[in-house]
């Protein structure tokens, strides 16, 4: 029977990887990928806690919410990126510093 620790460590690694991806990439979509990593790390954490009797089923429910939110976030973010691309023909977020369309 595995304990909680391996899951927590994995989740930490995924979180850091996500942050690193966000920092290192200039491409908006690549950054979105980083955000997905962070969200998944968090969800994994919660499910692991719930599995090991901490917080009963609420961990799984919270993870469910994370998935749903991630879907909503991805949709809106992609719509924004496409608009962004439409306006300045690139998805380089460094170019999006003008605050106008």
């Amino acid at each position, binding site marked *: 029977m595995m304990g909680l620790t391996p899951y927590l460590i994995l989740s930490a690694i995924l979180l850091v990887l996500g942050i690193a991806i966000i920092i290192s990439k200039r491409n908006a979509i690549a950054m979105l990928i980083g955000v997905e990593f962070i969200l998944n790390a968090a969800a994994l954490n919660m499910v692991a806690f719930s599995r090991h009797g901490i917080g009963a089923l609420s961990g799984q429910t919270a993870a469910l919410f994370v998935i749903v939110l991630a879907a909503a976030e991805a949709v809106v973010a992609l719509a924004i990126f*496409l*608009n962004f*691309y*439409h306006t300045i023909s690139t998805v380089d977020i460094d170019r999006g510093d003008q605050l106008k369309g």
Partner: protein
Amino acid sequence: MKEIELQCQPDLLYDGEIPSDVRTEELMLNMGPQHPSTHGVLRVVLQTDGELVLKATPYIGYLHRCAEKIAEKVTYRQFTPYTDRLDYLAAMNNNLGFALAVEKLGGIEVPPRADYLRVIFAELNRIGSHLMATGSYGLDMGAFTPLVYCFREREWIMDLFESASGARLTYSYITIGGVREDLPDGWVQRCREFLDYFEPKITEYNNLLSYNHIFINRTGNVGVCPADLAVAYGGTGPCLRGSGLAWDLRKATPYCRYNEFDFDIPVGRGQNGAVGDCWDRYFVRILEMVQSVRIVRQALDKLTDGPVQTKVPRIVKLPAGEVYYEVENPRGQLGFHLVSDGGTSAYRLKIRGPSFCNLSVLPVLAPNCLLADISALLGSIDIVMGEVDR
């Protein structure tokens, strides 16, 4: 034919921005020369924005075989087989056009039986050609089955042609001075059998394809070609009649005793969208098949005994002069501009291919279509590359 005010100017250059919802990357798409729905070796360069086509430029010449130049080197009789290969789906009609042009310049009279035979074969070939167009149009729309049904019927027509002329695709049957040979025994009977068999089949095609809801949605209101545009670009045949103009050379300037027959000119009425959309062009072909059946029936009734050819020397010599003669081909008006210097071969022969002129309207109709509409458009124009490139 009523006078039309020409408003559309041919303008092949597209320069203007077509606004769309989310602009994505523009793509240059090379449709053809090997593409299933370009009906041969046509190459269309599409400029697309997502699925939206901004500009379509046809590039032709992949099947150029110098037919016009060859005409200057061979005798008139020898050129007849070359006309087979112009619009290879309607070889009889091509033969007829060339023969009529030569006969007009040479003042050659044709016996009545030959005239009726010419009408019978031309109309049968019109049916065959339209069957091919209808079937492959179904294929362009993603329905495979109509194609096979149409080929089944076309097979019968080809059998009839084979028994009369010996060939199944390039007949060279209608020659200068009449037709090459008389009919074999029982041919008329078999032809009648075919007509009786074929007529109800047209209803089946309509039920299967023409009135199919998806098909109507795919073709109705797509590629609308108004009458003035069709005239401005020299569109003829179903491409012109589909736009609502009842213009048919068989009625306007009757040749081969077409004035003796009772038939109608079907035109597009915009039943499923604007007049002149793809569905109209398609449906005009279906209706023309019905009319052709009518004509063939009448011609079979009128078929008299007698010679099928006038005496024409083996090597025809035409007087110096020039003639331009047009006949109504399945795809439109096929014209032969023949200039003779009194020798045994043409000084210059210019062929007006209906597919070529009809194709020229593509760049005008294509912008703002979807990618799938391009194949709908090409199929409804129904080109034969052998005639476009000559």
